[in-house]
């Protein structure tokens, strides 16, 4: 891990909670939602910057664009199954095989491009953050996840649940202006079937796609000379 990466993690794991805290104090803990949206966007900035700053090879750039298109196009392709979407699975695969940065960007940009197409909304920053984080985590665990398919599926299920939990927090704050535990519980319970479908779709897609897609990515990396 080089210095740049360390700086990235510092921003993500230290600076972000700090801003949340400051925001809570400064805004009299009323406007969490706006502060957290700012934080979510802020946490993407270091990745965007480092992507802009260094010379990522053109080929990696194209691969990122392809994975990104897949995660968004997957929403159309599996439109006949509500909530059963391969977005998270593809973000995880991108994280495992293309590295930290591509993993995060694939996640964050998937949310953004979905917004371009299906409409941007208050949820977009949080989706960016959540999927970005999933991509990032999967790349950090890549060696482990590559070898162990069960772990991969568990990871998929867990990230599906965590994604839902996070976005439920957002909805709670969104509806109440503050975090209201009882509403959160209610939301969580009503969203349980959807969460279950999310988690199941992640598991199924990862189970079916991870190995073949991984092989294909490896083949392309060799063909490209990456």
């Amino acid at each position, binding site marked *: 891990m080089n210095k740049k990466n360390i700086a990235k993690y510092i921003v993500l794991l230290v600076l972000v909670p700090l801003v949340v805290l400051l925001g809570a104090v400064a805004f009299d803990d009323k406007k969490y939602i706006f502060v957290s949206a700012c934080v979510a966007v802020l946490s993407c900035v270091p990745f965007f910057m480092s992507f802009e700053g260094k010379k990522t090879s053109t080929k990696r750039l194209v691969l990122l664009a392809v994975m990104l298109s897949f995660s968004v196009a997957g929403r159309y392709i599996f439109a006949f199954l509500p909530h059963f979407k391969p977005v998270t699975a593809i973000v995880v695969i991108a994280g495992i095989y293309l590295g930290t940065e591509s993993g995060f960007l694939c996640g964050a940009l998937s949310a*953004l491009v979905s917004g*371009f*197409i299906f409409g941007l909304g*208050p949820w977009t920053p949080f989706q960016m953050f959540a999927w970005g984080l999933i991509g990032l985590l999967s790349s950090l665990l890549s060696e482990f996840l590559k070898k162990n398919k069960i772990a991969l599926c568990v990871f998929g299920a867990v990230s599906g649940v965590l994604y839902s939990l996070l976005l439920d927090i957002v909805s709670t704050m969104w509806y109440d202006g503050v975090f209201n535990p009882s509403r959160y519980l209610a939301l969580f319970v009503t969203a349980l079937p959807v969460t279950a479908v999310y988690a199941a779709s992640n598991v199924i897609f990862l189970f079916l*796609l991870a190995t073949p897609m991984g092989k294909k990515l490896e083949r392309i990396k060799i063909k490209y000379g990456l």
Partner: protein
Amino acid sequence: MNRNDIAFARFHPTVLFFYFFCLILFTVFTQNPVLLLSALCGGILFCAVTNTAKKNLAAAKLYVPMFLLVSMTNPIFSHSGATPLFFMNDNPVTLEALLCGVDLAVQVCAVMLICGAFSRVMESDKLLALFGKLSPRLATVLSMALRFIPLLKRKWGEICEAQRALGYFREESFFDRIASYARVFSALVTWALESSVDTAASMSARGYELAGKKHFSLFRFTRGDGIMLALTTALSAVTLFGILLGKADFDFYPRISEINTDIFAIITYAAFGTLALLPFIFEVKEALKWKYLRSKI
């Protein structure tokens, strides 16, 4: 209605972005019912004049239940407030919480509507132009993805059909179907990755690795853009000033505060109201102008 038919969409992306940023910022940060109602009105009116009746109906079907859901559920979850109406499971349902719920519902719907308007006005071209200024490389990735998504959709159809024609595609049960789709998806991945080799070659061949890239976009900053930007800035500044002075403060708990009606507060309301209604006003103005022009011809 086509995007080209929305007059407001013809402004420069920077102007539009700045306008919506200010509007959303104020809407999210205030609890003042006057401000929130004017934001909601702005959203509804703009939506009404730029959308077809069919789409408006569909939007109403989405927003009315959402409004009811947010406003009705708030008293269930929030028990603050000094005026209990009745008790439910030993918890008081208060007037304040109920009205606060309505206020929140106005806010939620207003923000959603404004976001919707933003999405319709800012098509991908404009977003890319904005992004391109901040981060040209990311803009390239996004542009590539936007090209690739419809291509993938089409290719997906082609491969599905090719497999069907070979008697390869089973759709009898859910799992057959998933397995068939996964197989095609995997073939689609192969195609996309293999053709990405050519895309990268085509980029390199046209000098993508050269230093000193410049960003280009078709959007021109016109005088009209300047006027709109100045107007937005002025109205936002007045609103911000009013909010910072506390003219638009409003609280629900423990008791509902009164709506401030001193002259500064009214100026603040007027400024924000104009800001929120700008797209609608502009839309109507342009429509009238066309009518007038046509009558002259």
